[in-house]
Structures are given as C-alpha cells and as structure tokens.
C-alpha cells in the first residue's frame, strides 16, 4: 500500500502551544495519508493531539499555537506553504471542517439560508447568480435530509440534530475533497447521533470525498470509518484498517484501549488502563507510553519509536515490532 494517489498526505507535522509554563508539543511528528473516498478515524484521549492535528490541516489554530514543521499535501499542494488568501480560498472549497460544537458556532442572528449563501459567496470568483446559489443550497439541504424551509429559520429554531446537519451541509457546499469532522456528535443523543453519522456517510459517498473523523468514541469509529489512526501523547501509535485495529491491535496502548471498551459480554468485568495520560509539558523520555506499558523494555525509555509499516497497511510505532532496527 503506497501513498501514491492519496488525496491528503501529512508528513511529520509538528505543532506546539506556547504557554506561560513553557512550550507544549501537542503534535509531535505526525504522518499519515488519506485515500480518495476513504473514511479515516483519528482517535485519542484528551491531550493526544487529535484536535490540534485536525485544526492544523485547516490552519485554524489559535494564536498561541505554532506549526513548527511538516507538510500537508492536498493533491500535491502543501497547504502549510500557501498564503493566507490562498488558504482562505482553499477552506471549504478543497478541505472543509465540521468543528467541535459546530451547532453552537452557527451565527444566532442570521437565518440559516443566509449563512449558507455566505459560504458560497466568500469563495466565488465570478459572481454566481442568486438563483444558482440557492439551487445549490437546496440540493445540498436535500442531501442531508433537511427541508427547504430550514433556509428561513434561525439556528435556535432547529433541534441539535438539525443544526448539525446544517453544518454538514455547509461543509459540503463547495464539493471539497476532504471533510474533517471534529467530534460532530458529542453533544447529541445516541439516536440522533446515529442519524447524523449516517447522513454524513451518505453525503460523503455521493461526493466521493474523504472524511477524517476526529473523536474519542471507539464505538463510533467501529461503525463509521474504514481506517483508524490511534493517537497518544501527540504521536500516532498505530494506523490500520478498522477491523485490524479492533480484532488484532498491535500497539500495547491500542490493545489496552480495546480491552477497556465496554461490551455486552463482560458483566462486571472492567479493564482500565492504569496510570495517567502523559504530561506534554514534561514528556517521558523515549516512548510516550512506556510508563504505563506492560511490555516496556529498557530500550523504551531511551529510544523514541518510529511509525513503520510492519505488515501490509498496518503501521505501528513500537519497539516490539522494530526488532533490531535502528
């Protein structure tokens, strides 16, 4: 499995936050690729760097965060090297984002239709006629199963699930190649969550776009994505097809994570991961996971493991699998 023909190629991305207590390496050398039409899940707990990674791809980080290195190639074009204006045009047109808490990021003072029109208008070079813009919007609203009447509603008049679908609509208006969904359903009930995720899947398949689903709900990942990238302490611990990750996890963290997931066959059998998530301010030496790892070897506290393809399409960064390699 090679990287050729992939729509998004992230290489060695490094992002730090500058805090009063010192620099925090939120994303520490993350590399992965995304194929056309593929759904990739970026899963990790708080502090793993998954949201920072997602926002870096869109260059929407806050001021205290600095992208210190790496490349983000979207169809061969490095997004990190674009000018502000070029990036602005690329957003939503080539790569779009459904941000965390998106339902609350809709402008409460504007009707939904107006906000959708704004998205199109901000990216048009030639003035498209109002008729054409509205036709596109109606087309998209239909694909997310919202009625045309939604155009004339204010956000507070819609339910949580409907608002989230408006955000999906906004993200696909301009036919982007990559859609990043950052915990799109965290505030939604389980029934609505399922409806929204199925809408997203249908829409994405119709567009033949790729999706990066960022979140911490492994259950959602199992239901929705094709491949999973597990993040820990600012790095990717493991990347692989969803079945492989769940049935045959390779990295010790992934193994313990899968074991700790609640399932209906384990009555009163809880298996948590002992220890605490690592401090990004004073990270452990060598492998980030070694203080909690049941298979830690002396080498693990010295050498930082590298993400390598140990089986076809199975990438792990763990010394258990790089026997003897430098």
């Amino acid at each position, binding site marked *: 499995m090679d990287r050729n023909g992939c729509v998004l190629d992230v290489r060695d991305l490094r992002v730090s936050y*500058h*805090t*009063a207590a010192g620099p925090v390496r939120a994303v520490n050398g993350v590399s992965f690729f995304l194929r056309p039409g593929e759904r990739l899940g970026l899963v990790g707990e708080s502090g793993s760097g998954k949201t920072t990674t997602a926002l870096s791809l869109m260059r929407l980080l*806050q*001021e*205290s965060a600095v992208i210190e290195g790496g490349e983000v190639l979207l169809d061969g074009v490095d997004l990190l090297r674009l000018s502000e204006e070029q990036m602005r045009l690329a957003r939503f047109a080539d790569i779009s984002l459904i941000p965390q808490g998106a339902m609350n990021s809709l402008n409460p003072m504007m009707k939904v239709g107006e906000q959708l029109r704004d998205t199109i208008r901000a990216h048009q070079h030639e003035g498209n006629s109002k008729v054409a813009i509205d036709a596109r919007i109606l087309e998209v609203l239909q694909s997310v199963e919202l009625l045309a009447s939604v155009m004339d509603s204010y956000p507070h008049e819609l339910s949580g699930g409907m608002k989230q679908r408006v955000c999906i609509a906004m993200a696909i208006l301009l036919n982007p190649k990559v859609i990043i969904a950052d915990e799109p359903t965290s505030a939604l009930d389980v029934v609505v969550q399922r409806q929204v995720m199925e809408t997203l899947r249908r829409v994405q398949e119709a567009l033949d776009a790729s999706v990066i689903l960022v979140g911490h709900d492994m259950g959602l990942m199992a239901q929705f994505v094709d491949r999973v990238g597990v993040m820990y302490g600012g790095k990717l611990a493991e990347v692989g097809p969803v079945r492989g990750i769940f049935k045959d996890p390779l990295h010790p963290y992934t193994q313990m994570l899968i074991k700790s997931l609640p399932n209906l066959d384990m009555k009163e059998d809880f298996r948590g991961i002992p220890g605490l998530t690592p401090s990004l301010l004073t990270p452990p030496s060598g492998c980030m996971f070694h203080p909690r790892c049941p298979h830690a070897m002396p080498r693990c506290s010295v050498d930082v493991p590298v993400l390598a393809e140990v089986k076809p399409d199975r990438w792990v960064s763990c010394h258990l699998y790089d026997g003897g390699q430098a």
Partner: protein
Amino acid sequence: MSAATLPGTTPFGALTTVWGALRRVVAFFRDNRLFTAGVVLLLALDLFGLIGLQLISPKGADMGAVPLNLSPSAAHPLGTDGLGRDMFAVMVIGIPNTFKIGFLAGAVGVLIGTLIGLFAGYYRGYVDTIFSSFADVMLVIPTLAILITVSAYVRVVTVELMAVIVGLLAWPLPARVIRSQTLSLRERLFVQVAKLSGQNDFEIITLQILPNLTAYLAASFVGAVSGGILASVGLEVLGLGPQNVPTIGRTLFYAFKYTALLRGMWWWWAPPVVTLAIIFTGLFQMSISLDKIANPRLKGSSRG
C-alpha cells in the same frame, strides 16, 4: 511535599499560608501594572497630604491666618487665597479629607450593597423582588438631588457624616452587580456539592460564593469610591457639606464665589482641579484593570 498533611495542622502551616498570601499579593501587583500605577498615584497624593501635615502648621488653613491674595512664593509655595488661607496648608489638609470621604462612602456603599445583593441573589423570591425594585428605583433618582435636600436639613455636617450619607445612597449599583453574580454562582455545581456535604446557607454564602466575588467587590469598591468623591465634591462646590474643615470642593466653591478665575489667581483654583484630575485618573486606571481581572476574556492573548 512529603507526607500529605491537612493545611494548618502544623505550627508552620499557618505561617506558610500568610507568607503565601503575601507572595500572591506581590505577584498581583507585578502582573497588573495599570492597577499598580493607579494605586501608586493615589498613594502618592495621600502621602503628600499626610507628610505635608507634619511639615507645616495646620493653622495656616484657618481663615485670616495669613495675608490675602498672595501669589506663590517661598513662604507660601501655593500662594494664599482671598480668605487669608495658605493654599498649601489647605491642600495638605483637604486631600486626605477627600480620600477619607471617598473611602468611607465607598465602604458603606459596598458593604450595604453586598449584603443586600448576596441576600437577594441567594434567596430570590419575595426578598429579591422587593430589594431589586427598590434598588432599581434608587438608581433612577438623581442622588445629587437627594443629597442636596438632605444637606439642606442637616445643618452641621462633619466629614464622616457626609461620607456616610453619600455612602447610604451608593449601595444600589454594587447590590445589582453582586446580586447577578450571586444568582449565577448559586447554581454552580460546587454549591450543590457543598450542600450535600452539609454546609448550611450561611456557610455557602460566606465560604463558597463570597470568596468568588473578590474581583467584583474590588471593582465595586473602586466605583463606589469614585462616586463618593464625585458626589461629595459636587456638594461642596455648591456650598453644602462640611464648613469647618478645608476640603477640595469647598476651596473651589470659594474660588468661584470670589471670582478667582477673573482675578487671575490661578493658584486658588488650579491645585484643587489638578488634584481631582489625578484622583480620577488613578481611580480610572484601577477600575479598568479590575475589569480585566473580573472578566478574563478582556485580557486578550498573552504574549507567551
């Protein structure tokens, strides 16, 4: 930190908390330069008054104590006014008096306002409706009008009495601020947890809610002090207020009455005006920086 101990269980525990508190205060002044600037300005002015009182005789501020209408000279650094008072002596006595009035009025206003605000915000219901309506009405009535009416009836006014009267009218604004904060704080989860842990209403108000209001209390205090000084100076300029003690406002009253402006006696009206400008600048600086502390979102991004 070795073995965990409950704070205050060792004799050193108490000392360390006091030292810790002192260090926090110093850090606070270091981090909030504008606030410190304001405090320094006001302190300098007050010190000027207090130190000056040691240097010269307060008798110089009595009427007829010195020759009239002299422009500034070595003997009288700020000249003398048309009533035979040494202006330097007048300022040296008047400035601390103004501060005294301001702080006293501010303290009275904030104390009453906080008590009412806490009560109304925590218990809500009828108590809240009554006090809030009362406060809203008082906010609309011009306090100067009330003060003038009151002063007309109260013949002999000491500095302290005037401060208390002004303070009694200053409570509605702090009450509203504290009430709205209390309304939101009482819903916070840690208040529910405190209730489950057995704390009664009084303890929750004083131990859980009140300590979270320090920024608002400070901001209200600064506001009340400003308002108090403004109201008292206003009364004095109109000729009301304490007559036996030199105050800044009274000096301006005399300056207007005896047309100091037209007579070119700038040393009569300028010192009080400049003093007032300094006082209000200092208070303003304190109040903006307190705003930023109370509302961290105004802080903006910190430069790393």
